[in-house]
């Protein structure tokens, strides 16, 4: 679960991190009021779950309350990469030139089977860029997941990263970042920029915080923070069904299967067949007809989807249950796009018999995944071409 900047800051504050003061606003009037309360220049920052909001115009310096109002008006309601901005964070502006900007972060790192602490004196910019262009400027340090980061380790990392300022205070912030990451089951938590002022005191100006979905059961106090409106509507629906679902850009083939590996491979196969997958959808193991029905319903709602590729290797999952779910969707009028399936394994013959009974051109079964994917790709591409012709005609 991704947290908004203001939420991540709230958690870090609970762990004692010195965080830049700020308040959330939902209207330009509220933005102005906060700016007046602070009696100082402020920054108005869009709260959306996408990167690059700054470049998209979602972060604006506001020297006066009226300017803050104006910027609030611009940013609230704005569309950033398909997501509407409903909230902004208004923070006191900081004179960046009066200090330095660093980067610190903790990330789950499978290569060290723990968290890796990252620290760089190149803060304030996209750390991915630093990683790509000057990786030597990022210090990596494995954090012991049982003890957490200790102050002496933090000091060593800060020194190695070339941080200037109050060494003990900066190290203390790193220790608290580690405590927050471990206690709150972070997948990723970053402070960037970590601003160190002229007196050497560190201050967290911006944060990223993402929590392990597997651990949400022990963070019930944060469940309210999942803000549905800020995620893709189909992803919200999928999360209700408990599906692992990812919407993919520019796709035209809906993909579903039983197991993350088989679905990933299905995406590859669709690509190879010359079409583009529109989503990743794992229905899990041992799915009954109803789950398949819901999965088909979900994928069908996606207007990008022109055909559906279902890829099942049944162990626990029974092929006839899959067939039943698809057929029910057809009968209920939910399924209007061609489905091309490969269902191997348990009860394969029963599935075939059920489909033969229905005998609809919309549902076709193939002996292997390549044929099924190729047919789905063909159908989808034909439909896409037709649609784009139509669009041209309508112009």
């Amino acid at each position, binding site marked *: 679960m991704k947290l908004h900047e203001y939420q991540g800051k709230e958690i870090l504050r609970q762990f004692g991190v010195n965080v830049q003061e700020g308040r959330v606003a939902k209207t330009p009037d509220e933005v102005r009021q906060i700016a007046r309360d602070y009696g100082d220049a402020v920054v108005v920052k869009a709260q959306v779950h996408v990167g690059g909001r700054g470049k998209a115009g979602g972060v604006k310096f506001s020297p006066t309350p009226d300017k803050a109002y104006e910027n609030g008006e611009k940013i609230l309601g704005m569309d950033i990469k398909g997501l509407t901005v409903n909230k902004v964070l208004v923070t006191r502006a900081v004179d960046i030139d009066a200090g330095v900007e660093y980067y610190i972060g903790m990330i789950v790192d499978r290569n060290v*089977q723990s968290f890796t602490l990252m620290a760089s004196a190149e803060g304030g910019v996209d750390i991915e860029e630093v990683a790509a262009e000057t990786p030597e400027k990022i210090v990596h340090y494995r954090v012991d997941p049982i003890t957490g980061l200790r102050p002496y380790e933090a000091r060593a990392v800060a020194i190695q990263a070339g941080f200037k300022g109050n060494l003990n205070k900066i190290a203390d912030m790193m220790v608290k970042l580690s405590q927050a990451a*471990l206690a709150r*089951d972070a997948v990723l938590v970053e402070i960037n920029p970590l601003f160190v002022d002229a007196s050497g005191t560190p201050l967290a100006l911006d944060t990223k915080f993402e929590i392990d979905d597997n651990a949400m059961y022990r963070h019930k106090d944060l469940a309210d923070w999942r803000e549905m409106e800020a995620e893709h509507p189909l992803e919200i629906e999928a999360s209700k069904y408990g599906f692992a679902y*990812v919407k993919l850009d520019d796709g035209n083939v809906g993909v579903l299967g039983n197991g993350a*590996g088989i679905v990933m491979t299905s995406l590859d196969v669709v690509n190879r067949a010359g079409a583009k997958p529109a989503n990743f959808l794992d229905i899990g*193991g041992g799915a009954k007809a109803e789950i398949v029905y819901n999965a088909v319903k979900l994928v069908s709602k996606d207007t990008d989807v022109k055909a559906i590729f279902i890829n099942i290797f049944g162990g626990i999952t029974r092929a006839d249950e899959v067939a039943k779910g698809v057929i029910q969707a057809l009968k209920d009028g939910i399924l209007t796009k061609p489905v091309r399936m490969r269902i191997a394994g348990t009860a394969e013959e029963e599935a075939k018999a059920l489909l033969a009974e229905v005998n609809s051109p919309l549902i076709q079964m193939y002996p292997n995944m390549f044929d099924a994917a190729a047919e789905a790709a063909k159908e989808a591409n034909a439909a896409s071409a037709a649609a784009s012709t139509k669009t041209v005609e309508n112009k």
Partner: protein
Amino acid sequence: MGILVNKDSKVIVQGMTGREGASHSRAMKEFGTQVVAGVTPGKGGMDFEGWPIYNSVAEAKEATGANVSIIFVPPAGAADAVLEAAHAGIPLVILITEGVPTVDMMRAVQEVKMLDAQSREHGGEGVRLIGGNCPGLVTNGEAKVGIMPNKIYTKPGRIGLISRSGTLTYEAAKLLNDAGMGTSTTVGIGGDPVIGTTFADVLPMFEADEGTDAIVVIGEIGGADEEAAAEYIKHNMKKPVVAFISGRSAPAGKRMGHAGAIIMGNVGTPESKLAAFKDANVPVADTMPEIIDLVKAALNK
């Protein structure tokens, strides 16, 4: 032959009386696995379909001499179940449970490795954790300690199989079966970001196994396990290895079901994995069926 489990393995099931635990205990028994007891805290003393249930792994081990444990405990208690088994001196622990918090796994994996080192330093056989979020492992015709469908693992074969994905493991095993080769042991290492056993841990066992002629590695995007495997193969393996990588068309930064399958920056890209395997002279199949051709070609060299 094969590795890790065989006819003599004595298996206990942690969480046997739960829904998943019960059904897979039956399936393992059907396969021929020596399932000797179950562990469900609070139900000690119960008879469950002929199996004795104990309150703790220590009691179950004491009573049955078990040397393998498979865990079906729900996510919140899964890491504790791993530690219980490891501290009780069970040398092979298989965690099937999906959805275990990553921090719990980090801590459990670190502690298991420490116990493993301690055990070995004192002349013991060590402790190995496989998984979590894995389908377990199976040595064809001998013992299955996992959740894979029984029928594709009945005939003994001579190809070792290691995979991060459950369904692709079945897919690959079936392909090898249908091609008349079959598998020796199949090890599902699991799709989570932090797991107990990696490709590079399993490869030397297959290298040493007289029942295995070649190894198939089913990898996926994310992490650097495939790169580490390639590095190991390059320097240590004499037997042929064939690889497959799923998720090659997945966009960066998106988590594809498997929490481990995510590309971060330049780490975990298909390009990096392909390059590593190429460097290690490991052919990589573009599609699953191509695996068969590559294995055949490798064996005929």
